Every structure is written in C-alpha cells, then in structure tokens.
C-alpha cells in the first residue's frame, strides 16, 4: 500500500478524483512499466537508492508525471521486493566496534603534523587490519542497515506491465480513502462477500434494504457515532480490493480534504479497476451448485429459486442465506445449506437462526453431521451427498400449508 505522502488526488467541485492511469491517455506508460520492472528484475544486489534513482531517471523527459507518481511506483516495486535486512544488528555492532577502536586516534587528519599523527587512510587501514578485513569492505557494510543503502535480494514482481499499472490505480484509490470518514455501498450482488470482507477489515456496517435485492450498506468504525474521524480510512482502504472484486455495486465515500473541507469520492464496478483478488465464487460448495442446477431457472410448483438475494441484518450480525424460494403467491422461504460443519459452526448457525426467527428458514444438513438417533426436527432436510428435490419441495409445501392455516385461523 502507498502512504499518504504518495497520494495524488484532484479535488474539484466537492468531488475527489484519485490519480488514475488511463488506457488511452497513458498508453505509453506500459513502456515505462516494462522498463521499471526490468530495472528491478535486473537489479538484484543493487542499493535501494540506486534503483529509485533509475526509476526517476526513466521519467525525466515525460511531460505528464508528478514526482509523487514516480515515488509511488518505487514504493509499489519495493512492496514486491525483498531487501537485505540486518535482523541481528550486525551493522550496528560493526559501527560500535569501529568507532570505539577509532576513538583513541581522534581526530583522523588528512595529513599528519607534529600534534596529530593519525592520518585518515593509514588509521583506517590499521583498524581494518585489526578486524581482519579490507577497509573498503568494512566501509560498505558500516551503514548497510540504513533503508536507502539496503540491497535488493529478490524481486517477486508483478504479472506484467499492465498488472503494475492496475496495481498503481488501485493503490491511489486506496490512498485517497485514507482521508475518508465514511463509506456507503449500494449493492445488488455479492452482498455476502462485501459484508464478510468489511468485517475482516474491522468495519461496522448498517444495512438498509432500498429495493428488491438492493441494499445500502454504510461502513464506519466504532467512534464514528461520536464524531467525524478519519481514523477508519485505513480500514476502508484495506477493504477496497475486496469490493473491487465484487459485482453490482456503487460506492460513495466522504473524505476530508487537506483544506479541511469535505469531498465525495464515487466509484462503481463499472470503473475499470482491476482487483488483485479473484471475483467471489458463485457457489461456496459443489452441493449448492448441484442443487441450483437441479432446480433450474424455471418455476417449480409455483416456487422460484433465487441466489443470495436476501440479507437479514440485526446489529452487526448479517445473515445472507444461500437461496431464497419465492412462491407465486408471495410466500418466501430462506434456504441455507450446511456443508462442512463443526460443533461451533452449528452452534453459531443456530444462534443466527434464533436471531432471525421471524423468518422461515429451511436448513439442509448432511446426514453424517447428525448424531445417531438424533431427530432432525422441523424445517430440516437431511441429505447424503447431494440434496434431492423431492424432500425440499415437500418441506416447502408444509411451510406454505402451515402459513395458510395460521392465516385462516
């Protein structure tokens, strides 16, 4: 990730535009990216500052390139690099030894005279002899632990020049978000993934349904309810690559500008950001996939199957069932498939279902998870390796019949 010092943001008319390299206007950047990658790939053993200098030199004649952009590229290249480190503090120890040895010769003079008889060159050679090394070797290692003198050990690199440029655009978007106070995502798909990654980024959410299968999710942090704060900007930035991998969303973030005014950043899945993360899996498990295929897109006995279109939210617990059955008469049954399981997992699932007991949830449970002689109970379909349609349709009818009865009575 970049730091605040790398961020290039254009603030215009209350809106924020993070620096973004365009496929057309910046087509020639592909060439730069290729050469930058070559500098690092061929730079094993070289000092960090030399690599940075070379990268800077590449852009010397480029009419469109602020210094921050160059520094940002160097940072992204460094992020994919390993430099020699000095975990045991060898340079530090060497310094102490050398300086303590040199103390009694102080000052090292250029030419000796009657008072000062320790010329620089000879004294350094003598100290080197005592340490059993050549002076030039010692001198080269003396400050080897300083960041800019560290040497490139290996370069993991990027998949190609385009990948580096994509990474740059995403990194600038993230850096822009460091100044964000809150973020709102309007999502029609992949809500489950969005919420899961937001939780991993330690964000709090508020979910509102704004239309059929359309949700407005506001992301903030704990203290946001007390005051406007930018402290969760980093969490929002960390969350963004996951969001970019999803489909069907628009995002609006409120930022604080350097002039202490506010600006709005708007991004959607149609902006051509490429996430380094893969898009969310359509199906978490093959059991789900098989079942969806078996049911098919058509109506069956008045029921239609929809995938992850319902979000139940209560405080910070959100429940996105795998499927929703909607009947032509308006009845809705949520369908959740328990694939792999552990006792903790089942306990947690039970707790979630208890929270949302106002909804009808049908549960598919693998047979091997049932203890001998255990009663599956109501609204539970037991399956062996694949979920059969028959028992599911039966259970759905039972639910509908019962709903009808309570409605009549």
């Amino acid at each position, binding site marked *: 990730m970049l730091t605040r010092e790398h961020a290039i943001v254009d603030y215009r008319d209350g809106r924020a535009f993070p620096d973004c390299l365009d496929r057309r206007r910046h087509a020639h950047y592909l060439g730069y990216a290729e050469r930058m990658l070559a500098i690092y790939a061929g730079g094993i053993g070289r000092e960090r500052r030399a690599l940075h200098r070379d990268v800077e030199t590449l852009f010397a004649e480029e009419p469109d390139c*602020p210094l*921050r952009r160059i520094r940002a590229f160097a940072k992204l290249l460094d992020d994919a690099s390993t430099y020699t480190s000095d975990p045991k503090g060898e340079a*530090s120890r060497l310094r*102490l030894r050398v*300086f303590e040895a040199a103390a009694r010769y102080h*000052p090292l003079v250029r030419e000796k005279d009657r008072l000062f008889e320790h010329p620089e060159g000879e004294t350094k050679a003598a100290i080197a002899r005592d340490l059993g090394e050549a002076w030039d070797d010692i001198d080269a290692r*003396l400050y080897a632990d300083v960041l800019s003198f560290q040497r490139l050990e290996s370069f993991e690199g990027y998949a190609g020049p385009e990948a580096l440029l994509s990474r740059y655009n995403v990194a600038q978007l993230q850096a822009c978000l460091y100044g964000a106070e809150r973020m709102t995502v309007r999502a029609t798909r992949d809500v489950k993934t969005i919420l899961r990654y937001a939780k991993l980024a330690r964000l709090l959410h508020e979910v509102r349904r704004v239309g059929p299968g359309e949700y407005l999710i506001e992301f903030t942090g704990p203290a946001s309810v007390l005051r406007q704060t*930018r402290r969760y900007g980093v969490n929002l930035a960390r969350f963004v690559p996951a969001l970019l991998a999803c489909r069907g969303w628009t995002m609006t973030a409120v930022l604080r500008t350097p002039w202490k005014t506010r600006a709005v950043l708007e991004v959607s899945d149609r902006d051509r950001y490429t996430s380094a993360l893969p898009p969310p899996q359509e199906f978490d498990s093959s059991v789900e996939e098989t079942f969806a295929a078996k049911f098919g897109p058509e109506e069956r006995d008045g029921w239609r199957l929809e995938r992850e279109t319902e979000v139940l939210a209560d405080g910070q617990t959100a429940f996105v069932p795998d499927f929703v059955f909607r009947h032509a008469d308006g009845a809705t049954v949520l369908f959740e498939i328990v694939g792999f399981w552990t006792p903790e997992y089942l306990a947690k699932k039970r707790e979630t279902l208890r929270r949302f007991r106002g909804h009808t949830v049908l549960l598919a449970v693998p047979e091997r998870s049932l203890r001998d002689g255990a009663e599956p109970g109501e609204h539970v379909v037991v399956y062996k390796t694949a979920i059969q349609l028959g028992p599911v349709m039966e259970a759905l009818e039972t639910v509908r019949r019962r709903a009808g009865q309570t409605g009549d009575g």
Partner: protein
Amino acid sequence: MRSSDTERTAESPRLRFDRGTLLLDGPDGTPVRDLFGPDLWTWDGRVGAWRCDAMRYAAVRRVLKECPGRAWRNDVPEPPPVHWPAVNLPDLRPEQREALAGWRAADRRGQVIMPTGTGKTEVALAAMAETGAATLVVAPIRDLMYQWHRRILKGLGYDAGIVGDTLYNLQPVTVTTYDSAYIHMDRIGARFGLIVFDEEHHLPGQCRREAALMCTAPMRLGLTATPERSDGRHVDLEHLVGPVAYDMPLARARGRTLAEYDVVRVPVALTPQEQATYDACSRQIRHFIAERRRDRPGYSWKDLCAESGADPVARRAQKAYYLKKSIEDRAAEKLRVLEDLFRLHAGQRTIVFAGSNAMAMEVSRRFLVPTILSHTPKRERLAVLDGFAEGRLPVLVANRVLDEGVDVPEAKVAVVIGGQASTRQAKQRLGRILRRTGAARAVLYEVVCEDTKDVHRSRSRRRSDAYARTRHRRL
C-alpha cells in the same frame, strides 16, 4: 451454562472497552440518561448499545460507584499496579514539588507548564513513583521516546516497553510517540491508569487528539513549556488532559539553567566544481522563473511545484533547487573545517549537528565517529550516549533533532554544519548542552557556505527586482 448466570447477564448493564470507546449495554429501559446526565452517552443503533469516548471512563466509573442497588458488570480491565524495582530519583526542587502538589490537587488530571530546562521529566517520574500506576508516556518523536525509556530505567529501575519505531513491546509501563499512540490506542487504550503527554502542545492536532480520547486512563499529566498553538486548539487541552495544574513563572527559571556560550560563525567556500554546479543550478532556476514571469507576473515557487507534474522543464528547475540545497548541505569544505575544529578542541567533548542524515553519515565515515539518527537502534543509541558521557567516544554526530528537548550529554563544543543558520529556539536548547566548566566558556560553531550567503545578499540588494523575494518564499 448455569441459568442464574444467564439471568444476571441479561439483567445487569455491562460496561466494556470497544476499540477506543466504551460500550454500555443492558436491558431496555435502563435509565442511562438519568444516571449519567444527558450528554455522556450516545446511542449507537449499529450495535444496540450506548457508546462514549474511552476518555470518559473516570466519569463513568464515578457514577457507577455512587449508584447503589444495581449490579453493574464492569468488563473494562483494571490496570494492575506497578512495582518500581529501584527508585532512584533526585530530590525535587521547590518548583517541581509545587508542580506535583498542584497536579495532585487537580485530582491527578492536569497540565504542568514549566520553561525549558526546569525538569519537567522529573516531575512526571515523581508522579509515576507515587501513584504506582501502569503508565503510558507519549512523546513527540522517537528520540524523545527513547529518552523517556532511559529516564524511566534510570530513575525507577523499570525497563519500559516501547510501541513505535517499528517496535511493539507492550508492558504495564510503556513509552510511545504521538503517531504510534494514534494508531494503536484502539487496542491498548484500556491498559493504563496514568497517561503522560510530553510536549502536550502536539496533542490537540486533528488526528493526534484521538490518542487522548481513546484512552481510559483516569490519571493524566500534560507537560509543556509552550502550550499555545497558532491554530488556537490548545484550549482543548483542558478537555483532553485536564486543567492547568501548575504554571511556573518564567522569572524563576531565568539565569539558572540556561548556560551562556559564544557563537562563532565559520564561513566556508564551495569548491570550484561545487560552485560551478551551484551557479549553473541558480542560473537555470532564475532563467526558468524569469521566463514564466513574462506571462504570469505572480509566478511563484508554489506554482512551480504544481506544474512540475506536467512539465519536465519545471521539474528540472525543481530538481536544480534540491541539488543546490544538497550542495549547501554537503559542501566538501565543511569536512575540512570540521577537521580543523576537531584539532582545535581535541580532548573536549564535541557534538556535531548535521543538516541531513546523508551528511551525518558522511561525517561519521570520514572521521569514524558515531551518529545518533532516527533509525539508530535502541541498543546502539544507549551505547553511544553512554560512551560519549563517559568520555570513551570524543564526538557525537546527530541530525537536527534539537528543536524539541532531546537530552544529549553535556559537551563543551557544538558544531552546526546544517545548511541554514540555527534558530533562536535551537540556540536556547543548545544552552542546555553546552555547559561552562571552570573559566572556559562553551562554544557553538556555525559552519555556513559563504558563497550561497553572498548570493542571498546580492539578491537582497536588488529587492526591487521582481525575482528578489522568491528565495524567501521557498525557504
């Protein structure tokens, strides 16, 4: 799960620390606003609980204690008391005793304002010693953080933890920087009984203040010589730290702690080669700006920086300026002058202040003398400072860490080889380092590039020239 437990949990309100805030949840209808007043808690619908800044913990706890007949569950951890292994503090001077008494009288929540060099650190150490509280000390920069670590080790015999400078070693007593405190407080905010803000005028910044807001520590001590901020935010210190508990009159400090010393300015010339590059850069910048001003009379350095992104010529002018600065900073002649000064003061402890890390390392490699830079590891820092104090190491090179009271061992001679003349504030701080011993006065040498000054002077003479003032703007 026993049913009695469940019942009690369900009925009694629960207080806990949640990432820099306090959360109070309990059964519906708990008269939170009646008990705590209308402003303390804010309802947080996202989690269905009451929330407030962790800083309000002292007030919250007071209400809980005075609130009989209710089974509150307080899940905010109680920081364990600290036992000081070996207290070895000097006797406090009268004004330090007054400061400590003032803080005590302010319910151990307040600011102590004392001029530079009057021993604020000792007041804080005495406060730590007498309260025996788990303490977090927040300092503005890494060097000061390490300095606090040293002082706590020396005065209280306690090896404090360090959070900052890529280290994360949390102990009941820990030192940190404002920047690290801002980052980590949501995790560590409930672990301390006392929080000390050194140079507290740094605290009220937009982000840094959160270090105070997100910490539960009921006892707070702010230290500063100059609480005022140009943005007026210092008034918030009362809210973030506490009222002014002690404000030492300046007259009492005068003439006691600040030593007098001579200042000697040593001009150096650039080598012909450096001078040639320097002049070429100057010409390039001058030419560039004159060109631009033909169309835009108000063209300034700021415009140049803004344009450097889209204009290679502007970028080259910008680079030329940085090259000039670097030549001033690292003129080869400075090393020769330094050699003369080392000869002149052989046998006397000497501190060299460089204008950049690069120059500091250059001096170090030329003369084989140790540096104290921001990236110097803790162990080396201690070894160098001790070696210097004991006289085993004759010279110490630092970069400009002077502006905020970093304690450097006393010395007879200081040499400033930075590019710019030292500020009055830095000179005052230097007064603490340079001590008079016997009849000989301490000396401060300022090594400055002669020709660049000449350039400056000649420009000043041509004040009517449209270009004359750009240099001021740039610096």
